[in-house]
């Protein structure tokens, strides 16, 4: 197991390198640079001077190598959009904000979702099931920026209960978390329902019931455990998804998190910032998959990891 984990960590580093290279190349392939602002054509000399100032006049491979070298020394550079800051500084300020929105979202959506999914599964094909499923699915049917806009209209402009957006007070959490939780809640509810149903009807559960075990014991020991596997595949990745922020939610509610940075950095071609964000997201996802796969083995020893073949 330990060997497996170390192996995965090494391959994660490899993945990060590849990801950074892809992002780097793509980024520079997008037309327009950080200095294509303004209304008039700049004199060629000034253009070259600008590129030179930020090291952008060198070849792409050379820029990439320089960048990686700096990163290995912990230097992620200075963001173009904030020359008085550092990339790490910006991210260190912005990510906690996103996480502060993300954690309540995760808690609320997973709790509510599981409860809803349970209810629906145990009352399968009754009106309770239909209602819960429909309501849950509705959370997935409307894009979150639409929900966000309606929320602002009702809760803020009409009723005046909360400010329209911004950051700094507990009140600022309410709308973003609501808007953000709808989709994950629905997702969790649906998958919990399905997983429980599948497990409920599994052979070994029928056997357990036939043996005379109490429903509760059946549920706890036999159903829940096996329901966790597909649930894990689908639901665990929701966590890094939520923790890396939603650009829509953060834009609409003016939250200074990393989600909003994605868009503003891309639009302004802030190369150091974009790369740092990409690496951040890549690292988070890589670690999540590692944890997911480890949990897989713990939950279902039948699945052999690490290269089982048909040699049986």
């Amino acid at each position, binding site marked *: 197991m330990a060997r497996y984990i170390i192996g995965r960590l090494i391959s994660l580093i490899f993945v990060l390198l590849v990801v950074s290279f892809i992002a780097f190349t793509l980024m520079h392939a997008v037309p327009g640079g950080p200095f294509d*602002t303004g209304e008039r054509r700049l004199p060629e000399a000034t253009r070259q001077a600008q590129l030179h100032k930020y090291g952008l006049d060198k070849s792409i491979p050379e820029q990439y190598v320089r960048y990686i070298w700096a990163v290995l020394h912990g230097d992620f550079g200075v963001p173009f959009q904030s020359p008085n800051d550092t990339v790490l500084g910006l991210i260190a300020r912005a990510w906690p904000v996103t996480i502060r929105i993300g954690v309540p979202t995760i808690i609320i959506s997973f709790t509510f979702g599981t409860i809803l999914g349970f209810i629906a599964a145990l009352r399968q094909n009754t009106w309770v099931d239909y209602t819960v499923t429909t309501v849950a699915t509705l959370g997935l049917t409307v894009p979150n920026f639409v929900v966000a806009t309606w929320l602002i209209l009702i809760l803020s402009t009409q009723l005046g209960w909360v400010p329209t957006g911004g950051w700094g007070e507990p009140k600022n959490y309410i709308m973003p978390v609501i808007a953000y939780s709808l989709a994950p809640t629905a997702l969790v509810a649906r998958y919990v329902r399905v997983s429980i149903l599948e497990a409920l009807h599994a052979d070994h559960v029928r056997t357990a019931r036939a043996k005379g075990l109490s429903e509760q014991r059946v549920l706890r020991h036999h159903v829940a455990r096996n329901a966790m596997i597909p649930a894990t595949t689908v639901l665990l990745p929701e966590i890094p998804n939520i923790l890396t922020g939603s650009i829509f939610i953060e834009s609409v509610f003016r939250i200074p998190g990393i989600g909003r940075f994605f868009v503003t950095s891309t639009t302004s071609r802030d190369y150091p910032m974009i790369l740092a964000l990409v690496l951040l997201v890549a690292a988070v996802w890589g670690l999540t998959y590692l944890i997911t796969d480890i949990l897989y083995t713990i939950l279902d020893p039948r699945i052999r990891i690490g290269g089982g073949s048909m040699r049986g």
Partner: protein
Amino acid sequence: MNEKNSLSEVLDQFPKDDPLSVSRRRFIAAGAAAMATGFLATNAGAAPLQGGRMATALRQGTPPADAAPPEKQLIIFPADVGIAKVLDFYEQVYQRPFVADLFSEPLVRMNREFEIIPGVADSWEGSEDGKTWTFKLRQGLTWTDGNPLTAADWVATFQYAANPEHAWDFTWFFRDVITGWNDAVDGKAGIDKVGVAQGASEYELVISTDVPAPYMPAMMLYSLPLSAAALKEHGSGVYNSDPATAVSCGPYVLSEWTPQQQIVYTKNPNYTGTMNVMVEKVINRLATPDTYFTMYQNNEVDYLEEPDPASLTLMMGDEATAKEVHSGVGDFPTWYIFFDVTKAPFDNKMVRQAWSHAIDRDTLKSQVLGPSGTPAYSWLAPGFPASQREALQDIQKFDPAMAKDLLSQAGFPDGKDFPKQTMWLRAPSPLDKTVAGALSAMLKENLNIEVELEEHDSAGFTAALNAKPTQILLGWVRYGMDYLDPSNMLSVWKTGGRHSWSNPDFDAKLKEASEYLGAPEERIKLFQEAERILVEDVPAVFVYHGTRVQFIKPWLKGDFLTPDKNGISAMHWPAYTTMDTVPEEIYVSSDAPDRG
């Protein structure tokens, strides 16, 4: 209207030893180009150079009766969080928040009537050949670090601007104008050769130009200096974007910059200048533009400009809020469809003409623009010097029959075989999208041509437009003035300017007009001839002039809303900066709610 006479009357009012007194002939030569180019040739009235009664009252230190106490003298402006990078004009022009130019004052300013009035320079004169400009600076002004404000600050700033290591994004502005500028920018000569130098004393600044430049005073609207001492110490102008190292000689200092949230300016307690501002605190609230209106409705900002059509309709629909809607000329922008005239099918003039006749600007105004714009058939907006809308309005007028006919003659009867077009839009606002959609529908209806609309962000669009050769075949964009002179607006269309159109007649006429030193009326005529060439050749279909709509909360009061001689009541461009008189003419009334 006899400009010279009214000026004489005005000038005769000043006693000889008044610092505002200027030699009559020199003043006319220098200032007439800016002041009397047809826009405001009128008797400027008593104390014309001091911005009106209100400013006088303020200068004398009596706040208006309904003003809020100092702790509540606060204005909040929304600013685009995506482009709030630095604060100083001479550090970077295009990536700054909405309110930025408050830490120093330019040589000249603009008042509500778009007249050039003294800023830090209380007088200026140009030489006979128009190539040497001497600005005499007011004395006794200091920076917050104790250093005096002298010509050395301007010299350092201009040299910094020309320095290739700085790579200033506005270097085109002085190109071919100031001596030694081109060579310095291109790296061929040192920045010390730039033609901005100290004159006879440290309170005299001399600017030398390669060509006669009667528009120089108007250009000097853009002359906000950085501190020479701070530039020397920090090596760049970024020092002014950090409260810890910021240095100001203007009416405000930078007191807070919370990234992604807000930027706060407070009144400079050590201010030694002449601007008498009432507002104690100015805040830039950073957000994405699509959230501005919601903030405005919730009193989280006090001002909003260029609203989307829905917000405008909402505000106009209610009697109370309709009073907060103001419409002005902004920076006299013109919105136009442009072509790459070097590529088919737009290399055919008849095609371009057909397009110009297929756009129903009046319906566009009534159904889409409303107060946000007025139909355009030519380049210079009404009110802009040398503008001649009536004379040119038939050249590109709406005439669907003529449009169809021309298209036929060009080889595409009823739009048959006309290649499907994609119109590039630059970071369009909701209004831009609607207008572009309407244009697309009109072209389909009147010419049977399909036009797809493609949105691009600013960087991508600009890169494609400025590429050599340009990559945009068809696009929709605007241009608003940099300073109030026809040479500025028309230079967009000279060869090597913004677009691929190149017309030697136009270039020659434009050059002739820009360097003309004779009678202002003649100068105007020359510019008008140039504009005629432009409009007749149709490198662009001019669609509308933006009339900047602003929402201003009712507790922002003062002379800044007093109608100007054209009856316009709005916060004049460039809004809250030391480049104009707005900061002196605005205060917050006591009925303002608690906010910020």
